């Protein structure tokens, strides 16, 4: 029984590793936004909503990992 409990906690810990990918994705989105804005500052109003959209999509993918980890901890 303790072994199952340990496996549950280890699984929850491993599931959070996917958040690293989401962090890199969010960073890439904002790097691209800064690049685009510094090359052509007049495009900022066009680029910003798309960057926010990309940020939300990348963040949601990371949150799936976080949700799996919470489910393992509290719902399994």
């Amino acid at each position, binding site marked *: 029984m303790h072994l199952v409990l340990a496996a549950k906690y280890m699984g929850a810990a491993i599931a959070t590793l996917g958040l690293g990918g989401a962090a890199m994705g969010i960073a890439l989105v904002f790097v691209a936004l800064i690049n685009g804005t510094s090359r052509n500052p007049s495009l900022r109003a066009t680029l910003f909503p798309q960057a926010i*959209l990309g940020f*939300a999509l990348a963040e949601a993918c990371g949150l799936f990992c976080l*949700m799996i980890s919470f489910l393992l901890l509290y719902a399994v």
Partner: protein
Amino acid sequence: MFLSPLDQFEIKPIFSYSDTFMLSNYSIYLFIIFTIMWSFKYLLNNGSLAPNRFSLVIFSIYDTVLNMVKSQMGNQGGIYFPLMFTLFNFIIMANLVSMMPYSFAYSAQLVAIIFLSMMLWLGVTITGLAKHGWGFFALFVPTGTPLPLVPVLVMIELLSYSSRAMSLGLRLSANVLSGHLLMFMLGSLMLNLMSLSLVGFMGGFMPMAGVVMITMLEFAMSMIQGYVFCMLLCGYMKDALYLH
């Protein structure tokens, strides 16, 4: 004292009358959200000379959603504007009402939100089929595909098209769910740490900064998620209406 963090999402009966009529916290929050949306009608002072501050908020929401619909679907997509405006307001109100302390997170109910997104996806698919007939299935073959690749690509496109039904609602719901869990866990950590000792009281200020940051992020997220939901639905609607 330490409750399970998932207890806050439990649907509990608040008021019940002889097994036939039951008012849960779920239905009460649904009623609150609809009341706020209905009150838009009265917040707009139609007869006055200048708009008041509530009207300005509603006008700016209107402008945001109209820009989104026009940029995705062109001028002909204007008939879908009322649907998008209602959805946007519904999701934003559900998210913002759930940010009040001790309230119930309506949009963290995975069943309700995923069912909503599946029905929207079904409606989009039926719209496309009614508009184009069998020609709707041209959506699954990208333009300029060599013939041997067509069966494989159709399978991949079919998979990605049908997974939209789940992913649209799961994105919103998982965001709200994990945000509220995170706030609850940091808050209970702060409470336990600060009630422990004087050193713990000092150390408890660190998670407090985290809670403040996470709360600000959640307020931003609750608005961004409503925007993203409507924007993606506009994109799916554009696919069904114009095919590629």
